[in-house]
């Protein structure tokens, strides 16, 4: 074998490894377009749908990282960018089977969303995550925090919607009025595919960015949003 053929062989090996590396980095499925999510529950969204940036968050009420992400990043985002009309924040439930009471918590949040009080219950569930993850609704702790976030009349309405929904089962309950919405979110997440929580997808200027996962601190998220807002 002469030197030239050896060089060709080496270049072929380099090209093959390039293809291998690209194959590794391509996700197994393509992400959904934001238009597909418009039909998902608007009741679990915060801010104006006409905001220049939309953020879809897939989270699990019992996941500790979701709690940190909510308290450290989403709270300042809601108070600042959502309140000022820059960001439209859409919550999607993605309860992981490893978290016993996460689906139950999602049912409470969806019931509250049905009567237009998603934000208060969403906040109450995350603020008290440590207190209800032990027993869920077995000792009424989860229910207690939902109740505290609502007026007695509102809680009564939520309770009515929750009839037939109190269960730590991760299976869809036929008689539960709010389970279909959770199932819808899970199906949307699986299409993306969401494999971990929290996962969020930013869309702006008609373009969606790849899903980002994990706890991103507020200064970094703000930097990215400011860059997007600065783009024409």
């Amino acid at each position: 074998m002469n030197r030239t053929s050896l060089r060709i062989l080496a270049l072929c090996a380099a090209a093959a490894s390039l293809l291998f590396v690209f194959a590794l980095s391509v996700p197994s499925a393509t992400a959904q377009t934001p238009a597909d999510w418009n039909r998902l529950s608007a009741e679990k969204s915060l801010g104006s749908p006409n905001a220049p940036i939309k953020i879809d968050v897939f989270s699990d009420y019992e996941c500790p990282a979701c709690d940190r992400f909510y308290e450290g990043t989403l709270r300042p985002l809601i108070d600042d960018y959502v309140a000022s009309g820059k960001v439209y924040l859409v919550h999607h439930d993605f309860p992981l089977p490893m978290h016993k009471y996460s689906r139950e918590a999602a049912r409470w949040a969806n019931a509250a969303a049905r009567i237009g009080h998603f934000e208060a219950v969403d906040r109450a569930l995350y603020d008290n995550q440590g207190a209800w993850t032990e027993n869920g609704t077995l000792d009424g702790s989860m229910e207690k925090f939902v109740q505290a976030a609502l007026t007695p009349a509102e809680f009564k309405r939520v309770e009515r919607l929750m009839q037939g929904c109190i269960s730590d089962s991760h299976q869809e309950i036929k008689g539960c009025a709010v389970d279909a919405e959770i199932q819808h979110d899970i199906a949307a997440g699986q299409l993306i595919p969401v494999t971990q929580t929290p996962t969020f997808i930013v869309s702006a200027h008609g373009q969606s960015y790849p899903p980002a996962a994990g706890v991103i601190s507020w200064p970094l998220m703000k930097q990215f949003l400011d860059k997007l807002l600065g783009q024409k």
Partner: protein
Amino acid sequence: MTPSSRWSAGRILLLIGRLALAVVFLAAAYGKLRPQSAVPWSLASLKITPASLGLSMTFFAMQVDSYQLLPPRAVSPFAHALPWIELALGVLLLAGFALRYVSLASTLLLALFYAVVIRSYALGLTINCGCFGPNEKLDAWTLVRDGLLFALGIAVTIAAFIVHRRSHPALNSHPEQAMQP
């Protein structure tokens, strides 16, 4: 196999290893610098423009932040520098320039990546790796892949030093030995 054919086989293996490592670094840099799109490898996501560059690097900074390793103030400078370092290493490896030092630097960087990935996996962080671009879950396969790349880096570095030593025997022997025919 004669010593001379063993010698050329060693040089060829070094060439292949060096080019493979170069490709890995170039792919990693390109994955971070190209426009970040939800639809991977669409035509729009392949072309790098000045406007897309700043956004891509800020997006990458969020991925670096998800490792929860650096203080927020240090994340952005690190994330903005890393793709360019990877690009430089890739180009230098491809050119074979100062191979011993470049391969050593590459291996040290791969060792750092490997350590960070092991730490994140051990902590159970559910994040994206960000190694070759977005939407790449950090899992057991990432550990295997980064381990193999680290091993490749070590092999290339050792081979680069051996080849250099054999190509320049005078540099490594005593003066009187070097003068012998």
